């Protein structure tokens, strides 16, 4: 049979090749970061080294990490720009709060209530993602981006006119576009533009950690599965993907819905961390904020997103001492960090410095330049 086997590619020919991503390593770093972060922060909180301000952000940080990772599923892994991620967070938040309120009447054990709420939030957000995704995923590039933006705004707008509450007998009431007549203020659950009110805050840091771990687990597993590979293939080359029988819509929808479900889960936890959340919270600005985490952490890079989300959530708080200049400083830092991380000149400089610091690192980890050169050549052909 030997003669039948074609001449092997020699390793010499691969000197410019780049090894593929290593899932195990990525998973290890991601889980490690989360768990180590949790332990350090918990210890800090217990020992009193970490102030109230930071402690108060534990849950939001987890929520944002989870959102960043789930958005990464769309932006990094599926390769589509989404500007409406906060919309799914909103769906998850309000449905989660609603369920928590109803279930909370019968179930005293809070972690269980939170889990149920998160599950329900995920289901509802997935449903929203499905309904939205079906028509729009045929669009491409910036056009898809603007449609996701539009859906984000539509969701916020709809949340503004949805009312839920208990009537006098403890029955759930729903109204659309007008407040529910004749119910007490504290029997309102979701009150249109006022949002979810009177929520019992049940979210804990541990819940947040679980959410993050679950999100990472799902996204990394998905990435390393038949479906994930199909999603990434379509991202890399849609036409080739179709040519090997991958249905673009199906797989894009899969990524979109999974991402929406995870965002819904995060939204539910977010909703249960504050006694009130207004729909306005989930507008374009929040969607963009999550996108900033993703881009700054590196598109497609899970643990990068974890770090970026954590740091960027804390950053505006750390800038409080600048008083009036706080948000200005934040803006400047954001611009500078973007330039520093993406500008080719600066990037290569930093790489050079890094290489000097770590001369031992082996050769197959560098050089994507030859690859780029070849790509350019290919396109030219």
């Amino acid at each position: 049979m030997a003669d039948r086997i074609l001449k092997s590619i020699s390793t010499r020919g691969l000197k410019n090749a780049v090894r593929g991503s290593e899932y195990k390593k990525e998973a290890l770093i991601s889980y490690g970061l989360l768990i180590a972060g949790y332990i350090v922060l918990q210890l800090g909180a217990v020992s009193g080294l970490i102030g109230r301000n930071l402690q108060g952000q534990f849950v939001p940080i987890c929520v944002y990490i989870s959102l960043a990772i789930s958005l990464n599923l769309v932006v990094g892994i599926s390769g589509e720009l989404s500007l409406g991620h906060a919309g799914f967070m909103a769906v998850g938040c309000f449905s989660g709060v609603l369920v928590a309120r109803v279930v909370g009447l019968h179930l005293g054990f809070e972690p269980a209530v939170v889990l149920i709420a998160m599950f329900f939030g995920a289901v509802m957000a997935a449903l929203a993602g499905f309904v939205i995704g079906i028509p729009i995923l045929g669009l491409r590039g910036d056009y898809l981006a603007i449609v996701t933006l539009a859906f984000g705004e539509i969701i916020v707008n709809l949340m503004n006119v949805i009312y839920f509450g208990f009537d006098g007998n403890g029955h759930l009431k729903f109204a659309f576009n007008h407040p529910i007549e004749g119910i007490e203020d504290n029997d309102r659950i979701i009150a249109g533009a006022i949002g979810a009110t009177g929520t019992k805050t049940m979210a804990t840091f541990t819940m947040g950690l679980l959410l993050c771990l679950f999100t990472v687990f799902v996204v990394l597993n998905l990435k390393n599965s038949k479906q994930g590979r199909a999603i990434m293939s379509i991202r890399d080359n849609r036409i080739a993907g179709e040519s090997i029988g991958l249905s673009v819509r199906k797989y894009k929808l899969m990524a979109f819905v999974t991402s929406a479900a995870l965002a819904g889960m995060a939204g539910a936890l977010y909703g249960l961390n504050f006694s009130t959340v207004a729909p306005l919270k989930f507008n374009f600005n929040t969607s963009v904020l999550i996108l900033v985490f993703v881009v700054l952490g590196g598109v497609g890079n899970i643990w990068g997103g974890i770090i970026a989300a954590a740091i960027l959530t804390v950053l505006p708080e750390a800038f409080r001492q600048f008083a009036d200049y706080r948000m200005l400083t934040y803006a400047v830092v954001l611009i500078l960090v973007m330039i520093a991380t993406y500008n080719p000149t600066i990037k290569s400089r930093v790489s050079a410095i890094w290489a000097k610091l770590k001369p031992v690192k082996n050769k197959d980890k560098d050089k994507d330049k030859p690859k780029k050169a070849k790509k350019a050549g290919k396109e030219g052909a």
Partner: protein
Amino acid sequence: MKKKFTRFAAVAMAGVMAFALASCGGGHPFKKDTLNLGNAGPLTGGAAIYGNAVDRGGQLAVNEINAANPDGVQLAWKAEDDEADPEKSVNAYNTLMDKGLNIFIGTTTSGAGVAVAEKADEDRVFTLTPSASQVAVTEGHDNVFQLCFNDPNQGVAAAQYIMANMKDKKVGIISQQNDYSQGIKEKFVSEFKGEIVAQEVFAKDDEKDFTAQLNAMKDAGADLVFVPIYYTPAANILTQANKMGYAPTFFGVDGMDGILTAENFDASLAEGVMLLTPFVASANEEATQKFVKAYVDAYGEEPNQFAADAYDCVYAVYNAFNQTGLEATADTAEICEAMIKVFTGGFTASGVTGAEMKWNATGQVDKTPKACVIENGVYVQK
């Protein structure tokens, strides 16, 4: 790999930098021996006008008190930015707690107020909010008090005033899709027994075009338009109504106050606008005039109701604190309990937003709103 690492390194560096900066700390004013008052409000973003006013009003009162009583309890004031977002507000409140907050001068906005009230209750921090007007802010929290009218209160007061004084008017409502405006509107609608001919809303603070809403009012024949909104969008509404040649009586609530302070505002547009407000900058009372003068001297602009509320809050808290007989070094929780006792024990405060203000056990204030009408560019009390 390297690429990622570069990015990571840069992001991490930025983070470390930030923490380093944060930890060396700006000179924060809270010391152990002062009575530390803090506020969380929107100092940036679309609602910054209200947060800044509260910050300035509070600071002014603190400065006055400290200057007047160099031997008494010294106050310290710090406002933290919350962008009118409950999440940020909790952060702002926690920051104040880290710095040694003794008494919380509420949040400036309602939604944020609800979120923070719960935390303040857990921490047992006495809270007197200048302007967070939702019922839910005080509800269920014995330590949280409002200095402003709450939303239903305003809605009810407005409804009653209109029923009593302008019974025959056909009423239209333009409200905003936010907690403040909807809270008032809902109560107004359920309380008002007259004829409501049209109800329209708008979504955002920087909404531009109101012609559709105004046309609806006009078509429905509304001759009184109730506008429970802030004055920034109201200024646009007035301008456009004027251009359309539609001139009903516009009836606002406390958010409408300040419309005359908008720079370069053509006061003739607001001619005849009515509003229920606890505070009128042009009122004749000595205290008000003194406050307005001090404020203009300090900040170069006329105070609006938010500034006045904060100003009153500080004075009320100061006076109440003196009644507790505690030292400024007392424990925050201890202060809280003592303050609750004072506030619910018949304590009255007088200030620029009301005389003889009293509080009930749920934390709501009892004071009478003033109905004003804008005539020749000044508020005239009715």
